[in-house]
């Protein structure tokens, strides 16, 4: 078997925080910083998406540039002199984190607390009356939940739903300025929208504003414990594409399904079946319990007596459009 190699790319040399770095032409400053061992915070950057550079937490200082530049999207150029921790860059990162922290709920954003501490950001200093993004949690289907209190408008879900991956175009950014939100047309429930429940938006959401219903329910119940979860990557058994599934398992129950972003076929994207159609795996009677379904800590989701099996839920959610 022959493996096609990409054409060779020239290397460009630039300076990151005083140290010379060489990266292939076309790389971003963020790539170069990674190469130089710098850890730059990112939120709207997605490894499988075109940078939108909306969140502005990855801003770095480039000599000769009037403003700071977004590391995630600016291409590295030969001779560039990049400062990742200059006063200006750190100040901007601190304030942007404060602006985010004061307007949205960052409690489920991985690493947010660490960054807030690192940059000395105090979101509380804008006062009690500081305007917040306040929206009720949207639970309009059985598969995933939209909690836009936590949304930083990174556009990743819109891009994943739209032309970059799924081509469903169920959601968009509606409104303008601080009132902008992610929305379906006329804010219709997802069940009336073009959503196909692939969950690829949930896959890319950086803050937990989008979460699987299973995870949402367990967090509500206080039973969500990532430290007790295992992750097992396997292959989806539904069709021949061979998508990789990563099963997140807590207490012998699949609690959510993600997909490795470095998979060359699917880049972390799945369809509704791979993403949500796992219930049959755990509807089997446990050995020795003579056919009685187990009650689980996740709110009886597997007990046929109180809730339909997950596959049926899928049918309900999508109106049979799978």
């Amino acid at each position, binding site marked *: 078997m022959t493996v096609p190699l990409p054409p060779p790319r020239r290397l460009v040399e630039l300076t990151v925080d005083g140290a010379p770095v060489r990266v292939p032409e076309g790389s971003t400053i963020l790539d170069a910083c990674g190469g130089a061992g710098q850890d730059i915070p990112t939120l709207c950057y997605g490894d499988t998406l075109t940078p939108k*550079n*909306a*969140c*502005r*937490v990855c*801003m770095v200082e480039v000599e000769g540039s009037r*403003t*700071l530049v*977004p590391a995630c*999207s600016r291409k590295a150029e030969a001779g560039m002199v990049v400062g990742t921790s200059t*006063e*200006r860059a*750190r*100040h*901007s990162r*601190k*304030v*942007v984190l404060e*602006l*985010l922290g*004061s*307007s949205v709920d960052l409690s489920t954003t991985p690493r947010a607390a660490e960054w807030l501490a690192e*940059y*000395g950001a*105090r979101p509380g*200093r*804008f*006062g009690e*009356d*500081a*305007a917040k993004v306040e929206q009720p949690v949207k639970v309009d289907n059985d598969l995933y939940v939209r909690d836009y209190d936590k949304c*930083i*408008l990174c*556009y990743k879900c819109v891009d994943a739903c*739209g032309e970059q991956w799924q*081509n469903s*175009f*169920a*959601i*968009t*950014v*509606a*409104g*303008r*300025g*601080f*009132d*902008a939100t992610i*929305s*379906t*047309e*006329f804010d*219709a429930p997802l069940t*009336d*929208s*073009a959503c196909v429940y692939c969950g690829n938006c949930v896959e890319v959401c950086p803050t937990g504003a989008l979460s699987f219903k299973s995870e949402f329910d367990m967090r509500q119940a206080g039973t969500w414990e990532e430290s007790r979860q295992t992750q097992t990557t396997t292959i989806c058994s539904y069709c021949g594409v061979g998508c990789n599934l990563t099963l997140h398992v807590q207490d012998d129950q699949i609690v959510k399904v993600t997909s490795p972003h470095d998979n060359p076929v699917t880049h972390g994207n799945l369809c509704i079946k791979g993403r949500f159609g796992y219930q049959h795996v755990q509807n089997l009677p446990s050995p020795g319990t003579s056919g009685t379904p187990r009650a689980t800590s996740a709110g009886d989701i597997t007990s046929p007596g109180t809730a339909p099996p997950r596959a049926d839920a899928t049918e309900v959610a999508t109106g049979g459009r799978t």
Partner: protein
Amino acid sequence: MDLRFRDAEPTDDERAAVDAVLGPPPSSWHGGLRTEDDLHFAAGGREARDQRNLLLPALHAVNDRVGWISEGALDYICRRLTVPPAEAYGVASFYSLLSLKPRPARVLHVCTDLACQARGAQEVRRHVQERLGPPGTSWTPSPCLGLCERAPAALALEAGETPKSTVYAPALPDGGPASGTRAGGRAAGGANAGDTDSAAGQANVQLHDPQTERPDGPATGGARGPGGDGGQGARILLGREEPSAASAVPQAGDPSLVLLRRVGAVDPASLDDYRAAGGYAALRRAFELGPLGVVQEVTESGLVGRGGAAFPAGRKWAAVASRPARPHYLVCNADESEPGTFKDRVLMEGDPYALVEAMTIAGYATGCAKGYLYIRAEYPRATARMRHAIATAHARGLLGEDILGQGFAFDIEIRRGAGAYICGEETAIFNSIEGYRGEPRSKPPFPVDRGLFGMPTVVNNVETLANVLPILLNGAAAYARTGTEGSTGTKLFCVSGGVARPGVYELPFGATLRELLALAGGPPADLRAVLLGGAAGAFVRPDELDIPLTFEGTRAAGATLGSGVVLVLDGSVDLAGILVRIAEFFRDESCGQCVPCRVGTVRQEEALHRLSRAPKAEDLTLLREVGQAMRDASICGLGQTAWNAVESAIDRLGAFPLPSAPLTASVGAGSAASPAPSLVRAASPAAPVALPVPSPPEAS
């Protein structure tokens, strides 16, 4: 694309409005009736998607006909253009003049922006609120309407088969005994150089609603009789015949004028008048020079962009002309929305053919076959004049195929904005024309490489293009003799606020602010400050009137010319109120794409509200820190400049002086609580001490 539509049906009116823009639907795939063929052949696809740029015109059509866009109408537009309904909803909800909720056909937009606020807009607003209730569907406070020389202003837009617009400027409260005494207070006092000096009582009985203009008609406003069909909104404000564009040019008729020389001297509807006054000589000269020659002349003239960024126009043109990718596009930015700016409106209303000619020359020089003229929707008369001028030029062979027999083909299409300041940003304007949300793009790539529809694009402001005519007529060298070395030619200034003769003035670069104000009737005795460059500009003090009005001179003084706004604030103006309004403006107009601007503008406004109640050191520190982050980290110029004016008011005018006793305490607390004293000016304990000095030392 497998789109899911909602099953809402459009009304006949909505369908007709959309079909008037897009033509009748060719098949049931486009929302038409189902025929036998449709069962066998799918239509739409790429062909329909390529029409995406008609999304905004189609939304406008429905909004103009019905007053708002229903689910059925949006659905029908989406079927016609193969646009996902969610995306169309995102676009429609972006623009403030489009409504997705039912509202009356007639909506009154009351300007509450800077120039109007300095001339009694609050009074008008109070009056309208008394009559119509709190702002909502029938009336709404509006950002700058570009009628600043006749402030305070209001604009009524009325949907219908022939949509109408009515300009009230100055907007005088009508009705009841109050109207006879001009309840606007300062509103009209001493202003407007004789346009409005007839007694209010007289106008009161005479005219209710006369400045009505059909956007599709070329003529000046035809008066409607009192008690016309304007509905309840009509009698709220007292209208009068909208004066000609020349009334906004106090210098009209002065032979030394260059850009404004034809305003008031020619009939803006007459191409013959324009040609008799020297029109189309510059285009002939361009054909003699050839495209490269034109670019060279413009480069040598030293012309820089007049939209605010002051980028050399010749370099932009040369870059686009040299790009191999085709087609090239020309975009004329007439989305003049900077509060206090109205020069482009006056140029378009008073001398529309000059813009047509200048765009033709720009297209010729840079290899464009198509130019888009993007006019803000708040300018119905300018739009009507330009539409007429383009149609006439077309009919006379000055646009279209083979212009003047030279084998050059060029056409101009007008696109109307829909109420979004940000669409004047040079890349947001592309997204708006293409039918997407008017969000700025990340640069690089720059427009000269990838602009409209991804192609090399020249974007120029109206005034910039107007300068091309004298450059070609008199030669680059003669043009460059006017002005200074760094700023050549003449500049239009929009003078408004507390002066006797507000209006558009043309002066050679290098004149001082004092000279400009002298022309406008002199600064008021109790001059408080002058805002240069608009909401994104900077305040200067009464002792700084000798600033030379050049790009380099204002920059050296720590100010900016911006778009040429000169807003004069006298002692009666509530400075804190003006600052809060500036902050409100940026909050309203932020597109919401990037965090520093989306949230920063909100935090800036909140801090200014607190400061106007009780100045506190930590709020000043907060403003500086947020301001610096907006300036450093925002995507586009809106966020980057949203803090300029506020900063200059604090630093140069001594706004929000701190009471001296608690100062040390709060500074101590502030700096102790701020662990990263990253910005010298922000967190250094010395800075707040320097702030409250009412008249700071020399301009930095």
